[in-house]
């Protein structure tokens, strides 16, 4: 009896295993060309993993890319990122005029903009949103992106102006600050030839009191905090004497350089020339937020379980934190006719293998960038749904240039020459080797300078010149006996990929210079602190990604000293950048930026390694979604293609 039963069981198991094998075979043949299932979803719904649970749905609050992608579905700005190039394209602003030195921008808004509740959108909504984004009360981490707008930093930092109580005149910055950069046209009395001849209409309403304030020389501002102010004044006797008996006037949101000229015209005055400024305006910190809802609910206006008023192509349908955020097409959207998807389901996930599994079984249609684990690349990279493209971010090593022996440029250069970046890129499989400080192949028409190529012979020679002779041993290896290895180390934050990178570089230096640099891993926050305060000797791991699509977003890391984590600063470098940004001709400006970049690279405060790669996957039936360098997608163009003949087989091109 028992034997018979077990025979049946065996038969059943055999049958089951047969079914299993045939099933897995069919799925295997499916995944030969693509990675996993390729059946399009039945409904017109796009399912996407955008990264970890969003920190907030309040646009200016979060700094992350996962949130930025969600905001692109929910909140429009003046401009939107182009799906391929990420250059600004019209959104709420139909078009814009720029003055002659790119220091004042006038945006002409469309008149059919509406909130998801049907309320109309006009220039005052932008004034409100911009003022809120930089207000000290909101304390947004993104506020620094608005620093180009006049009196933005002063308002954000709670500074004060200084006024003479008798004459009611404000003290001016130029009278008290040495080496101040020349002020842009927008800080000078209004002229007649300020706008380009191409502007379709004359400058609107040039005579508003606010506009005249914008067009007067910059006022002197002091810290609002009495302690900080006293400290500053104690150092500057001339300033202290000038302040005596004057009244201090707090900088308010009304001083901030954004003005609703009329209902559908918005004018922004800048503190300096910034030709790239429009590209910045697609950033989340500049997206529209609903004044009414915020006045009613305060900070928690965008909480789950609340009707979130939005103004993008989609609006929130349901938000179940840690599970899903479902957004649906918003019929009130000004461009609703272009929107192709009915819904987007954003799934918050952070574990890469789990995300890839979900993708493989066909439960999601695309995943965020940097998701394919290293160990999977061998297989996934050969599939036709792998997205291969350069990213607007770079990996490099920062060098603490304030301490010997790294304060000697020859030593810094030697360590750079000794690294074979091509070999590194080949080993890492998906990155592109980099010798300069801007990512390669991202900025069209930018004459990117070349840094020094791999040259171990030259590296040894430079080290010898710097007083650390490198000698060749009998077995072909090198030694550098008097190099102070106890003065130099390589710090990185604890993470497997950082460790691999550190060990790789360590091996290169050992092999080519005969120097063994010790590695030290640190907890993330400890690492950040050590790097920011230059409390490290030698090298620290660094990475930088673009805030907007212009080389300046990389070069500005060294624009104001102390932020770069290297201790390197140079007024000449800053001067070239200033000159570049005042250029009217984009080609000339790029030339000057490249000159600045070359100047910085030659001083070698960093050792660039590579331009990162986007490294993600999308199903072939997902169309209108491109592996652009910021992994930011204008969702209204994305759709699901059911005709197999029109599917993407391979990475779609970013050209045209």
């Amino acid at each position: 009896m028992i034997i018979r039963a077990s025979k049946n069981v065996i038969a059943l198991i055999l049958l089951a295993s047969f079914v299993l094998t045939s099933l897995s075979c069919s799925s295997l043949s499916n995944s030969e060309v693509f990675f996993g299932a390729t059946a399009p979803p039945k409904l017109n719904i796009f399912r996407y993993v955008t990264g970890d649970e969003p920190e907030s749905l309040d646009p200016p609050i979060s700094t992350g890319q996962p949130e930025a992608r969600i905001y692109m579905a929910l909140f429009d700005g003046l401009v939107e990122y182009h799906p391929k190039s990420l250059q600004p394209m019209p959104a709420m602003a139909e078009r814009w005029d720029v003055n002659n030195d790119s220091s004042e921008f006038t945006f002409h808004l469309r008149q059919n903009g509406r909130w998801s509740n049907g309320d109309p959108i006009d220039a005052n909504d932008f004034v409100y949103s911009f003022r809120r984004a930089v207000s000290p009360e909101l304390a947004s981490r993104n506020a620094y992106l608005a620093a180009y707008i006049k009196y933005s930093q002063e308002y954000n930092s709670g500074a004060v102006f200084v006024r003479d109580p008798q004459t009611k005149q404000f003290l001016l910055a130029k009278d008290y600050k040495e080496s101040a950069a020349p002020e842009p046209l927008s800080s000078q009395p209004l002229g007649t030839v300020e706008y380009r001849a191409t502007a379709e209409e004359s400058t609107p309403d040039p005579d508003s009191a606010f506009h005249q304030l914008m067009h007067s020389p910059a006022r002197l501002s002091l810290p609002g905090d009495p302690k900080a102010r006293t400290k500053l004044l104690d150092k500057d006797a001339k300033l202290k004497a000038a302040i005596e008996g004057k009244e201090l006037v707090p900088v308010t949101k009304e001083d901030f350089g954004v003005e609703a000229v009329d209902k559908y015209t918005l004018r922004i005055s800048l503190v300096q020339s910034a030709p790239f400024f429009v590209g910045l305006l697609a950033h989340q910190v500049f997206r529209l937020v609903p004044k009414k809802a915020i006045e009613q609910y305060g900070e928690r206006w965008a909480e789950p379980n609340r009707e979130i008023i939005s103004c993008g192509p989609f609006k929130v349908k349901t938000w179940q934190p840690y599970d899903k955020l479902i957004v649906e097409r918003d019929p009130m959207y000004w461009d609703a006719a272009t929107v192709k998807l009915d819904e987007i389901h954003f799934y918050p996930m952070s574990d890469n293998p789990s995300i890839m599994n979900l993708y493989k079984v066909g439960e999601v249609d695309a995943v965020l960038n940097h998701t394919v684990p290293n160990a999977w690349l061998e297989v996934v990279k050969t599939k036709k749904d792998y997205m291969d493209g350069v990213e607007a971010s770079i990996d490099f090593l920062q060098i603490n240039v304030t301490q010997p022996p790294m304060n000697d440029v020859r030593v810094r250069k030697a360590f750079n020459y000794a690294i074979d970046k091509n070999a590194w890129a080949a080993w890492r499989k998906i990155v592109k080797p980099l010798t300069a400080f801007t990512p390669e192949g991202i900025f069209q028409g930018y004459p990117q300078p070349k840094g020094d190529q791999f040259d171990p012979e030259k590296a040894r020679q430079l080290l010898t010149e710097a007083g650390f002779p490198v000698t060749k041993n009998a077995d072909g290896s090198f030694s550098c006996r008097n190099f102070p290895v106890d003065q130099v180390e390589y710090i990185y934050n604890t993470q497997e990929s950082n460790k691999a990178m550190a060990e790789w570089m360590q091996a290169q230096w050992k092999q080519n210079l005969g120097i063994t640099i010790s590695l030290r891993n640190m907890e993330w926050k400890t690492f950040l602190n050590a790097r920011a305060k230059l409390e490290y000797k030698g090298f620290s791991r660094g990475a930088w990604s673009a805030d907007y699509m212009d080389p300046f977003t990389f070069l500005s890391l060294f624009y104001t000293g102390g932020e770069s984590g290297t201790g390197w600063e140079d007024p000449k470098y800053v001067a070239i950048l200033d000159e570049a940004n005042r250029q009217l001709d984009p080609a000339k400006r790029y030339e000057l930026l490249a000159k600045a970049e070359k100047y910085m690279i030659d001083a070698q405060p960093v050792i660039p390694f590579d331009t990162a790669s986007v490294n993600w996957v999308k199903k072939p039936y997902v169309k209108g979604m491109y592996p652009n360098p910021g992994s930011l997608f204008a969702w209204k163009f994305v759709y699901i293609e059911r005709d197999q003949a029109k599917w993407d087989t391979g990475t779609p091109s970013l050209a045209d």
Partner: protein
Amino acid sequence: MLRFIIKRLLVTIPTILVVISITWGLVRLAPGNFYSGEKKLPAAIEKNIREKYGLDKPWYQQYGKTMWGIIRHGDFGTSLKYEGQSVNTIIKRSLPVSAGVGILAYLLALVLGIVFGSIAALKQNSKWDYSSMALAMLGISVPNFVLGPILVLVFSLTLYWLPPSRWGGFPSRNLILPVLTLSAIYMAYIARLTRAGMLCVPTTFVRLVQKG
């Protein structure tokens, strides 16, 4: 008995408060801040954030405020990671899910464990006994973090039957694998306990009676 339980429950309150205080202190002593990241913030923006969250106040005021909120209102404050949400809402939202999965796993473990254990005991030393006890041994010795991925590999990535991750609410297909994984070890213990209980206890009694 009831008094004992109540007493034990009351003792947990100061324990939790001490744990919260120690955690609070450790977080304060740890380097860095919740707002620090790869891109260094300008000083003015950092100052705004510190003021917004009251980090510019002396530590005893911050500690007092936190503890007062917890003791007086049961309020754990605002989330620093998910801005604009309170910690209480997050707990309220997540606790039922964790508890639900836990209870389901426990129930499954109880039912299957007793069934397997009983079968093993009733058919002592038969192949039924050996196979269910082998299974139980496997359940005890294979840890969750191994069993989970194996189940995903078989049922999701090879068979395409069940979702490999995500949450679908109660009830849903998403429940099956996590509940199974979570219950395995308890199921194994319960099965062995049941078997031992059904087999051994009576004989001990018998022996006792015989000796007495």
